[in-house]
């Protein structure tokens, strides 16, 4: 079984910071915003480390928690060897696990945290993730100042950092169950069309979740996928209909909910922080939904293997939330 039910796992609090473009976008409930991409640091990588540190410090402070009360810190990002999260973790005396599922990292972190808490191996766990548009450009694409031409299927990495506190004490948001996705390669090699790489994994994990949990797609008040973007969203709904015979209606994609049309971000937002931003600052903030399924999607490429023309595997993990 890919699906797991959890006992006594709750989301207690969340803290977020967004970049300059996101500040002017569709989301307005963020906690902090940066005025520029350097955030007072010398390089973009160092700026991203500072973003993680700021959300982490604020989360600890607003919940009046000392470092020794946190049993586990789980971090992940897009920079080489998840170095931003590891450098940030070195500033705290908290046991640390680094994770990577590209833009599905956040839900992978929640699943690991939930397993620890549900198995009574931890009481308080912090999951932290971040993305920085210009670091992702440097990492996967062209030099920042080059301004290379892009296809309409390209997504735009969201600049933001999000830290979430999970605990075994009851709160209004319960993590009910999760389905761990499979890494799926459908032969797509186009790194400028990550929506097409990730859509099959997202459709598969949704189908697996519904089958294993014996639920109908309408069981959920809303289903939120992470960063498929405008093109990937269409492929996803088409795939669900054609292959799995699932007609999805109450549905949002995080990639389409961050930037306005005027912001010229091609097919929309992507990045590990895109889904948690939309989840907390839009879906949970409006307090309309009781049963929520989030499906984070990631394109698991490396520059080297993509250049070697292999198909790129996509990944998607699902987690079910119940709000009181």
């Amino acid at each position, binding site marked *: 079984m890919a699906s797991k039910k959890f006992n006594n796992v709750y989301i207690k609090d969340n803290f977020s910071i967004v970049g300059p473009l996101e500040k002017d976008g569709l989301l307005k409930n963020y906690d902090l915003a940066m005025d520029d991409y350097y955030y007072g640091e*010398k*390089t973009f990588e160092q700026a991203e480390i500072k973003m993680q540190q700021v959300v982490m410090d604020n989360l600890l402070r607003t919940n009046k928690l000392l470092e020794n009360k946190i049993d586990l810190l789980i971090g992940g990002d897009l920079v080489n060897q998840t170095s931003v999260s590891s450098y940030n973790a070195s500033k705290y005396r908290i046991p640390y696990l680094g994770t990577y599922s590209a833009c599905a990292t956040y839900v992978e972190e929640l699943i690991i945290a939930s397993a620890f808490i549900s198995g009574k191996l931890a009481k308080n766990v912090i999951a932290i993730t971040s993305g920085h548009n210009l670091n992702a450009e*440097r990492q996967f694409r*062209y*030099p*920042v*100042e*080059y*301004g*290379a*031409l*892009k*296809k*309409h*299927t390209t997504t735009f990495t969201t600049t933001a950092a999000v830290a979430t506190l999970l605990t075994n004490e009851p709160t209004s948001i319960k993590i009910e169950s999760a389905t761990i996705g499979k890494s799926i390669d*459908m*032969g*797509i090699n186009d790194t400028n*069309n990550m929506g*097409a790489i990730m859509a*099959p994994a997202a459709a598969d994990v949704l189908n697996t979740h519904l089958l294993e949990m014996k639920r109908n797609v309408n069981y959920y008040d809303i289903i939120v996928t992470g960063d498929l973007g405008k*093109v990937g969203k*269409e*492929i996803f709904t*088409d*795939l669900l209909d*054609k*292959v799995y015979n699932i007609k999805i209606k109450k549905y949002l994609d995080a990639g389409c909910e961050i930037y306005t049309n005027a912001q010229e971000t091609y097919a929309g937002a992507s990045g590990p922080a895109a889904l948690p931003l939309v989840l907390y600052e839009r879906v949970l903030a409006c307090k309309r939904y009781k049963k929520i399924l989030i499906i984070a999607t990631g394109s698991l490429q490396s520059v080297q293997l993509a250049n070697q023309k292999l*198909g790129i595997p996509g990944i998607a993990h699902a987690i079910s939330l119940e709000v009181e």
Partner: protein
Amino acid sequence: MNKDEYKKLVKKHEPQENKLNNAIIAFLVGGTVGFIVEGIIVILMNVLNLTRIDATVWTSLIVIFTASLFTALGFFDNWMSKAKAGLLLPTTGFAHSVSSSALDYKKEGLIMGLGSNFFKLAGSVILYGILASFILVIVKVIISG
């Protein structure tokens, strides 16, 4: 669904690029740059009494300097993406690719950063440019003796 069927489905959802529109923009921008550059050559020839060869060399230097300066001032990347392929023409595009790489890696040190990544984008242009000119010279020798 197999991989080929999936590729067809992806193709169906891919938004169409307006190639004609892109080509017209690139043609107009590239043509304008060429027109300005030719103007500079003519001015240099008439004002400084340079030969056409000397004026061309000086004009290349001016264009390279201007493109690199615009890159450093931070707005050339926006022009690049707006002008489609119009500013990718040899001199401006080459200068911009080198200076944008240099800017990107300068924080990692002069040797391991800036030096080793300087020609990250332009390396292919240099290599295949030299190779192409080499082959063309051989062709020319064979044809015209």
